[in-house]
């Protein structure tokens, strides 16, 4: 190779290096990594905590939630209820979308239609009977057919899109999975939020930059935020400790000490809203792959009680979860139900469990398969293993089938409900107990109704269904709480499910970064600041 060629090459290389490094100059960049991906930029495509949090950086909702999860003004400056079934929203003026166009009532109406269109995963965020009426350019009414105490509870994750932009780019319908062409909104955004996305490579990296035309004041001091997927636990922790990223989620329980000892980062823990629980098939007349033939032991309430009593949740919380879990008697997190404290988890009692099994006709126990995800919840498979060994001691032999979430959900979810005994986690998206009573433990006898859609075990008590319906329309908070309590008591009396615990959030955060962590586990960039 001649000298001149080497020189040319060197020049080209240094130029490229300069180009490659240019954006890093002086900008305050926050780098963060999550085990999963930002699945889609379309804010109606996937209900998944992390993605929703990312959308919140570029899109605004009419009503948002503050650092304590209380409702707070968003694009709606204020709202009132002139009648019990009518909500009036006063929209903020001088709000601009990222493409420069102004935000008006038409965008709200458009978004209300779009979020409830086929293909949206957020149809339940707005009451299904809601009608939206434009009053003027900056006032919108929502009219319901009946009073609804929780009508606005899910507004904070209903983000407002631009009507003109969607129409121009053929993104009027929420990303249709079956279309032959990809949806524009999947890969592009046009929100009103404090950040814009300048680069989005699905599964690789996404770059957020500060939106100079934002209507509000932003707490964050970031110029730029770069997101990367790091699915491998060890690699993710290493990246945080090595200072390559400023934030990771989740920090595996066993690595929390090391992160804290690293000197560069700390683990930020907090209670999460998700409840981890065990369910039992109470529908089939004979359990699949069980040693018991011709009958279903889980239909016997004594067996269910025995299962409950045999599992030592305190030890699970202490050992498997290393103290990062709150044992729970209910299917809902304490912060979401005011009277949670009135429920106590029955104490573990293996002796009584054995006696109950004997009484039910299983003195030597029985064999049952168990389904468990191994990459969905914190230490999910380890919890299941612990359960297996605890049940083994009262004679119930469990064949554990732990699989990745894709396979697990394909097996246990509707329409097959192919499971005898399973572990699942659940966060009520409405942050309200009704969701539990309706979707998780409601009878799934009516195939047309969404009631019991997530009731994989198929527990059914019509009395409970009646209570759930009452709760839905009840506007008096005290009365409502009492009705919920009645419902939960029935659940406990029937030993319908075995709630285990609420797992803790565990974010790994660089010491240079300050941010806010809420129990809903959303990373909200507008509250993130970093020492430059």
């Amino acid at each position, binding site marked *: 190779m001649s000298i001149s060629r080497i020189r040319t090459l060197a020049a080209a290389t240094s130029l490229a290096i300069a180009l490659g490094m240019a954006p890093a100059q002086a900008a305050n960049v926050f780098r963060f990594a999550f085990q999963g991906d930002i699945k889609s930029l379309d804010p109606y495509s996937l209900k998944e905590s992390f993605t929703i949090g990312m959308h919140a950086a570029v899109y605004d909702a009419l009503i948002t939630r503050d650092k304590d999860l209380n409702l707070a003004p968003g694009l709606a400056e204020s709202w009132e209820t002139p009648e019990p079934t009518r909500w009036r929203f006063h929209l903020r003026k001088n709000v601009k979308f990222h493409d420069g166009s102004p935000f008006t009532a038409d965008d709200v109406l458009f978004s209300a239609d779009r979020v409830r269109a086929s293909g949206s995963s957020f149809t339940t965020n707005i009451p299904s009977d809601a009608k939206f009426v434009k009053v003027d350019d900056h006032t919108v009414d929502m009219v319901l057919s009946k009073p609804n105490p929780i009508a606005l509870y899910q507004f904070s994750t209903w983000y407002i899109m631009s009507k003109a932009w969607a129409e121009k780019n053929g993104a009027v319908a929420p990303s249709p999975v079956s279309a032959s062409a990809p949806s524009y909104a999947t890969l592009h955004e046009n929100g009103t939020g404090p950040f814009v996305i300048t680069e989005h490579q699905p599964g690789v990296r996404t770059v957020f930059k500060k939106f100079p035309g934002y209507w509000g004041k932003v707490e964050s001091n970031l110029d730029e935020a770069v997101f990367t997927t790091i699915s491998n*636990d*060890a690699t993710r*922790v*290493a990246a945080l*400790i090595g200072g390559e990223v400023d934030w990771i989620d989740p920090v*595996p329980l*066993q*690595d929390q*000490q*090391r992160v804290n000892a690293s000197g560069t980062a700390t683990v930020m823990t907090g209670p999460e809203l998700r409840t981890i629980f065990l369910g039992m098939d109470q529908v089939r007349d004979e359990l*699949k*792959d069980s040693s018991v033939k011709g009958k279903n032991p889980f239909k016997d309430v004594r067996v269910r009680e025995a299962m409950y009593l045999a599992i*030592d949740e305190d*030890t*699970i919380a202490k*050992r*498997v979860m290393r103290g990062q879990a709150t044992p729970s008697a209910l299917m809902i997190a304490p912060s979401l139900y005011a009277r949670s404290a009135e429920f106590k988890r029955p104490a573990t009692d293996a002796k009584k469990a054995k006696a109950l099994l004997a009484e039910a006709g299983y003195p030597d126990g029985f064999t049952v*398969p168990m*389904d468990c995800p*191994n*990459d969905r919840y914190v230490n999910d*498979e*380890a919890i299941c*293993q*612990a359960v*297996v*060994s*605890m*049940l*083994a*001691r009262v004679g119930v032999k*469990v*064949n*554990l*089938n*732990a*699989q*990745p979430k894709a*396979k697990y959900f394909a*097996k246990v979810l509707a329409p097959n409900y*192919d499971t005898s005994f399973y572990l699942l986690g659940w966060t009520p998206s409405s942050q309200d107990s009704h969701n539990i009573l309706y979707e998780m433990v409601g009878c799934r006898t009516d195939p047309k109704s969404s009631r019991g859609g997530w009731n994989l075990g198929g527990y059914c008590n019509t009395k409970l269904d009646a209570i759930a319906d009452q709760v839905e329309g009840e506007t008096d908070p005290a009365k409502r709480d009492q009705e919920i309590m009645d419902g939960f008591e029935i659940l406990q009396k029937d030993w319908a499910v075995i709630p285990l615990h609420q797992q803790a959030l565990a974010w790994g955060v660089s010491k240079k970064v300050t941010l806010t962590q809420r129990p809903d586990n959303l990373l909200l960039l507008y509250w993130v600041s970093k020492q430059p």
Partner: protein
Amino acid sequence: MSLASATPPSRWAKFLDSDVFASFRRSKLAMAALAVTVLFFALAIAAPWISPQNPYDPAQLDLINSNLPPIWSPDGQSPFLVGTDDQGRDVLSAVFYGLRLSLVVGLLGVLVSGTLGAALGLIAGYFGGFVDTLIMRVADVQLTFPAILIALVVDGVAKAAAGGGLDTNATIGLIVVSIGLSFWVQYARTVRSSVLVEKNKDYVQAGRLIGLSSPVIMVRHVLPNVLGPVFVIATINLALAIITEATLSFLGTGLPETMPSLGTLIRTGNRFLFSGEWWIVAFPGLALAGLVLAINLLGDWLRDALNPKLQ
């Protein structure tokens, strides 16, 4: 040859006098490797009797004993000689049982792939023509997919077919099949090329002339002559099969955590590498590395010893 000696030497005496044995005695490394391999096999076979705990029996695990360090640490507890994992499983017992499983999976995988490969190679080489082309083209396609891909495919199909969970034996079967399906090509190619050389030799032609049938000639005359290289490949593939099983576990298609092989132990223990609970991954890792290394060394030496050109 040895008309001089009055009594013909026994087989064993012949072996002791052979070049293979001599080169073995000369190589301290080979002797050490054999000793380690034998030790691991012995531990694997004796696992149920020498382990303080049956790590596969969930009733014997107690969460109270979880994450105990080795006994020489201040927090160590008897009888957990090298500590326990996050389920309270005795790491030493788990390593013994894991060795057992890893060896079973490896040996069965090698058996399946070796039998399949040798058979196909014999057929391809002996008959030639269309059969040969067909088998070797299939081998080409096969080579496109490494064991991991094949295992993912086989695993997915089998689980779908079984309609959900598989018990451990079925999982072992699946891994064995995956390994068998991914490693047969090497045997087939080796056997085929040996057969191509052998089949023109006088004794095979003679066998044909005296009217021996093809299968008889192949199995009785050609096969013994190609067994040397096959045995070398098998030894090295045993090591590879054990590693493959471990890798499959890393990708989540290996043996379940309730019945861990060495690979599964490493995958789960790997989570504790940063957290200071090093013993959970270190001992299975050492066992695996030691076992594979010993087998590889043996295979290596065997290849050199059986290769007259290198004498």
